């Protein structure tokens, strides 16, 4: 029973991890290449979830919901990059933090106006609503599908960045944007592409999370914070680091939440442990991040040895 519980919690952790990776990949690329801190990345995740939920209720096709979320969030990202954020890229991080903090408030309220303040329900797609037997315990197949999709996207990103011409330009842009521009590459176009790609990935994460979290205004912020933790632990600008750190954070957070109360029961009274356990479990990843930063300020997998910078 305990091993099965541990295994299913491990899978839950992996599932959270791949979702975090989808968000972290875009955020860390945008930071690595444009040196831009985008706090509004969580809003794109939220928009993806809402676009997906709306498309799903209207068409009852999860495939269309996926397309709507990815394309919709991508377009919003494109528009943001072209019309709102261009002047911010040259500014210091503080201005970027302030501006995108404003955007968070804006998008949360926009969603509240359009879809109302209460949460929107999104069903698990019919084909994936069953459970699967793995090693003698049952696990929802939808969550397994999330893990699979996340790993597939990670593989695709790896191939895109390491094996294609665009990927080469992205890597070059992260190393020295001015030099790439001087060699005749339209760096603005490259930036827009990366930003829109990141936005589309955030939208994908949003729509995939839709059926298992509550789709509501402000749903992007807790995820954004976790994503920031991921890209810091992984090393800014490093896709490989983001992937590994996302899995670590997802698993540590989930296992902590699942087993911390039980663990604490051996030390404290049951009531105290049940109350304090979840909160202390939430502290775990921050403790982990603080230790990582204190020991290795560049993160666990700094970008220089990996994809970018």
């Amino acid at each position, binding site marked *: 029973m305990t091993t099965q519980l541990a295994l299913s919690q491990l899978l839950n952790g992996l599932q959270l991890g791949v979702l975090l990776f989808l968000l972290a990949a875009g955020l860390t690329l945008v930071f690595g290449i444009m040196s831009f801190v985008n706090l509004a990345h969580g809003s794109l995740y939220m928009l993806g979830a809402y676009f997906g939920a709306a498309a799903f209720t209207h068409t009852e096709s999860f495939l269309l919901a996926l397309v709507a979320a990815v394309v919709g969030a991508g377009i919003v990202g494109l528009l943001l990059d072209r019309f709102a954020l261009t002047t911010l890229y040259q500014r210091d991080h*503080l201005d970027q933090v302030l*501006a995108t903090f404003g955007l968070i408030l804006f998008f*949360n309220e926009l969603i509240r*106006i359009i879809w109302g303040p209460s949460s929107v329900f999104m069903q698990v797609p019919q084909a994936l609503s069953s459970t699967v037997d793995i090693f003698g315990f049952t696990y929802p197949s939808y969550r397994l599908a999330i893990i699979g999709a996340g790993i597939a996207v990670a593989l695709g990103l790896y191939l895109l960045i390491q094996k294609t011409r665009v990927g080469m330009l992205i890597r070059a842009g992260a190393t020295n944007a001015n030099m790439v521009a001087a060699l005749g590459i339209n760096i603005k176009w490259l930036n827009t592409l990366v930003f829109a790609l990141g936005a589309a990935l955030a939208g994908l994460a949003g729509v995939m999370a839709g059926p298992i979290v509550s789709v509501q205004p402000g749903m992007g912020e807790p995820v954004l*914070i976790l994503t920031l933790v991921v890209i810091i632990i992984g090393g800014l600008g490093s896709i490989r680091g983001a992937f590994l750190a996302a899995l670590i954070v997802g698993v540590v957070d989930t296992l902590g939440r699942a087993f911390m109360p039980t663990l604490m029961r051996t030390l404290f009274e049951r009531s105290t442990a049940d109350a*304090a356990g979840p909160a202390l479990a*939430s502290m775990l990843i921050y403790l982990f991040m603080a230790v990582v*930063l*204190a020991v290795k300020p560049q993160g666990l997998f700094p970008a220089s040895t990996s994809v970018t910078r």
Partner: protein
Amino acid sequence: MKFFPQPIVWSSPRTVTAIVVLALLAMLPIIAAAFDASYYVSLTTRILIYALAAIGLNLILGFGGMVSLGHAMYVLLGAYAVAIPASHGVTSGFTQLAIAISSTALLAAGVGAVSLRTTGIAFIMITLAFAQMLFFGAVSLKDYGGDDGLTVAARSSFGAFDLSNNVTLYYAAFIAVLVALYLSWRAVLSPFGLVLRGSKANARRAIALGHPIFQYQLVAYIASAVVCAVAGVLLANLTLFASPSYGAWTVSGELIVIVILGGLGTVFGPVVGAIILLALEEALPTLIEHVLPDYKSNWMLLLGLFIFVVALVLKHGVFGSLKSRSP
């Protein structure tokens, strides 16, 4: 030693603004009483408390270039230093202040010593991490309300007088702001402040000149944390409530917004920033109600746009855009 650390240029727009704002703040309870609008006293007390916390943050953010996204944790600590003793019947303001200041100084020394090993974006994130830890730590205090927070039965008493009167509390906050303004003004222009500002402008050069900037930064970090803790003490007194939400990362974000809105690296900027932000939060719903009654609750949309535009357009904040020869 002269009282003012630098000669005051009376004709400069910044001096005039600062004096007019402070004079209005000094008279506000009297004006409010005349118009029978006592609500505005508590609203302005809130503004003053946020201004105080922002003055604290400005010490390291504006003058030291350290972007802390975790300063709300010291507000939280200050508030709990009032609420927890109060729940055990200790209402002495001196004791509560002593607990708030000593615990904050200790915590800030530890957090600062670790965080200052990093710079730039890593510093932002590590301060955020510590603040989140304290936030969840407060949530786990089941005996003191946990997630819901705990109410404060009585306001702090300082020997002969106590803060139970709203106007007294207002002037306590006002005086705290005045003292913090004066001290930060002095600090910024002192040799200490010079090294601190130098470490912001060019850390490598400051080190090369032989200044142990880590120690300067750490002292500034602790001082700024203590100012925030005092703001927390006042906040718990104002709301008669302490909750983990005081230490939420969005509050740290709001404090940064206030500092930047007012003008980074100006002594008086945080006061202007706090007035603008909190007054907007108060006025926008009423304003929208007149134009589009259905959308009254959606004022955050405009606030978000406003913050965005300020970040784009005003590089030096509202107060910082006024001309002056002095910081």
